[in-house]
């Protein structure tokens, strides 16, 4: 690794995402327009390594690692609280009664006003695909993730929009064509006015991490899945194998335990780190990977 820092630009380079320029240390403004919210959002403070930036935090949150971003949407509507990953209303204000009665109903659709006309935004899809006999099959409804489903709704912050809720309490998922009744709700501002900080009344301290695993170390062992490999790696120390295909190790394998052969993660295989290893010695046994290889 070389040492010399490059001179820093004070203005952004056209085309290159600000987030990249910030990580590369090539964008360090001394002045930012007070209305330049994207610049404020992307700013990397002096002395901060790239790992402090949201650019390095995963957002395919099931449930996530650093934060569970899904929580930011729970209180988007004034008066109700949504489940972080479902269209289920889990909490309501006590008044008025019609709001209070929405508890455990499901939000099926939102009608979003826009400059080019209204958008009927469904919040539920049907999952489908071939069953074991090859026949296309409906596997049931599923709520869409909030971030993409509400992408146009954020601009309606401070305004009332029409929401379509199930007519009855629905403990189980319902499809996009479920009977609904309409209600008008106020949308909260996503950001504090005039700033790029997530609004204070949208999430309270502790809420952005509340649905992560407790403790997080447990998830590193238990999940046995690799959707966050750029933060929690899966396949490391990879080399071209003699037959052509690659060979390498599972990040969770005990190092030096034998020939370099990938071991699928199934919680209990010998040669893989155990819960106890990670609870008690995570700093020692979890390795940093630089250029795909163990490097502490």
């Amino acid at each position, binding site marked *: 690794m070389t*040492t010399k820092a490059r001179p820093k630009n004070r203005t952004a380079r056209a085309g290159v995402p600000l987030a990249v320029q910030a990580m590369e240390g090539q964008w360090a403004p001394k002045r930012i327009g007070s209305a330049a919210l994207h610049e404020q959002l992307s700013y990397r403070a002096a002395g901060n390594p790239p790992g402090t930036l949201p650019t390095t935090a995963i957002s395919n949150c099931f449930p996530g690692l650093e934060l569970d971003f899904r929580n930011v949407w729970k209180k988007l509507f004034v008066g109700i609280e949504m489940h972080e990953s479902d269209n289920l209303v889990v909490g309501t204000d006590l008044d008025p009664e019609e709001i209070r009665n929405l508890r455990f109903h499901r939000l099926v659709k939102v009608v979003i006003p826009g400059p080019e006309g209204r958008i009927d935004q469904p919040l539920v899809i049907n999952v489908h695909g071939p069953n074991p006999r090859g026949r296309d099959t409906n596997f049931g409804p599923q709520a869409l993730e909030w971030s993409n489903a509400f992408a146009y709704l954020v601009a309606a912050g401070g305004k009332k929009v029409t929401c379509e809720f199930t007519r009855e309490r629905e403990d189980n998922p319902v499809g996009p064509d479920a009977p609904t009744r309409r209600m008008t709700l106020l949308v909260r501002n996503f950001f504090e006015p005039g700033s790029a900080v997530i609004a204070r009344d949208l999430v309270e301290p502790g809420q952005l991490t509340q649905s992560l695993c407790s403790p997080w170390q447990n998830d590193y062992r238990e999940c046995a899945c690799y959707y966050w490999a750029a933060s929690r790696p899966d396949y490391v120390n990879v080399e071209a194998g003699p037959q052509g295909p690659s060979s390498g190790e599972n990040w969770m394998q005990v190092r030096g335990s034998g020939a370099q052969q990938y*071991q699928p993660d199934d919680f209990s295989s010998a040669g893989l780190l155990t819960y106890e290893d990670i609870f008690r010695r995570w700093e020692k046994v979890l390795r940093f990977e630089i250029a795909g290889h163990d490097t502490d």
Partner: protein
Amino acid sequence: MTIRGLRILPPLAIARLGSSPEPLENYDVRVAENDPPGFRKIHGAETLVVDRHSGTIRRSYTPKSIRFKDRQGRVRPVAPFLEVWADVDGALVPLTAALLAKNKLTIDDVEWRAQVGNHKAFRRTGKAPDRIDADTGWFRGHRPHPLAGQCENFLDGKSIPFGDVQFIRPSRRFPEIRLRFTPPKGLIYGAVARHRKADVADIVYDSSRGTWSGYSDDDAVPPLIVTNPSSIYANTGDDRTTSRGYLDDECDGIVEVRIVTSRKKPLQAFARIGAGPPDFAPDSFPVRTIADDLEQALLGPDPKDDEVSSAWTEEIIRRAFETVRLQNTAALNGNPLEGGVANSMASQDAGLGRAEEPIMAPAIVDSLALQALHQSVFAALRSGSAPWFGQVLRQYDDVGDLTDRGRRRMPAMMRGSDGLHLALTRRQRNAVLGSGNQQATSEDARAVTFTAPTTPPGKETE
């Protein structure tokens, strides 16, 4: 030079846990110019060394190399600085002692407050006394202020340390107003019952007051009120996934700054902070990040024409490549492996009722083969001949399409926040579509990459 308002930048700062007393040094991560799809290079960058006692920045230096653990093998925590910027005549500039003086203020007029919480137990039990919260209250001065996590259901006198915050004393060389959040160590804390002594740093939770130890998602009413995925807490391994009552020191919250002036309202601002696990692959980045979601919320799903660029598209593909490079794609494809079958989207789909079969043709998904494939995408993009790429990206509302064609869209083999196949943000996808020729069809894409183009439909998984 009248200060009209304040901001704290960055608006969201992520700290990363570690028990070393030496914070991680600063570095830049750069794409290698002679090897764009290669691993990014880590270069030392100006590192600020804080004297914890006085709160001053003692010196700065640029490290020759970056070590993520110290000599004792302890992880070096990532401890972010948060800077105060002043709104002066429509522009933000760093707030300094000199700017304060021009406004007849001093650094003694600057007050801070930090509030963080860990509501993991509360999220499960639904009982407010299970919230763990820390609040420094408003403070001045430059000593570290500990964030002691208090909880009604803790044993008397017990708390969980969530790290500390320190107002950095401005100096002639470093005159800016800033605060540093030093995160906690990454320890586990236990309850009176069900803990194993060696697992935990301390016993803090009073099992005679609260129900976290012994809690089970199985008891939730209605059942779907639980987290998704469910039962993600340390448990005794029984059929009910009974909680051991373990707690960690991850947290999130806000940092506030306030300056009381002669005006009616004080100048004030806040930012958000969080403390999570280390980034164990610091030269690689996720394909979809919290920054992408925040950008979509801030700027909308439709980038303007002058915002899209081939460099942005290239960065999205680079990140996909960086994830793929650290995945055993053969395992994640659902290929049978020596030693068993991995948990993958193929097996998750089977759990929904879909036929269990690999996502791509098994012969084409070896990690090195896919790396070569992504490199060819890079080369095509750079030569301006990859107009088809946008066509292979999954749309946000197609995540439930579990047909062969649907599952082979990009990003493939990854899981989204709803548990289904991952889609990029709509803004990311629109950026890719906006940066290239959209006349090509998905069949063009199919011929180039990601699927088995020569195998007849229906035979691909044999």
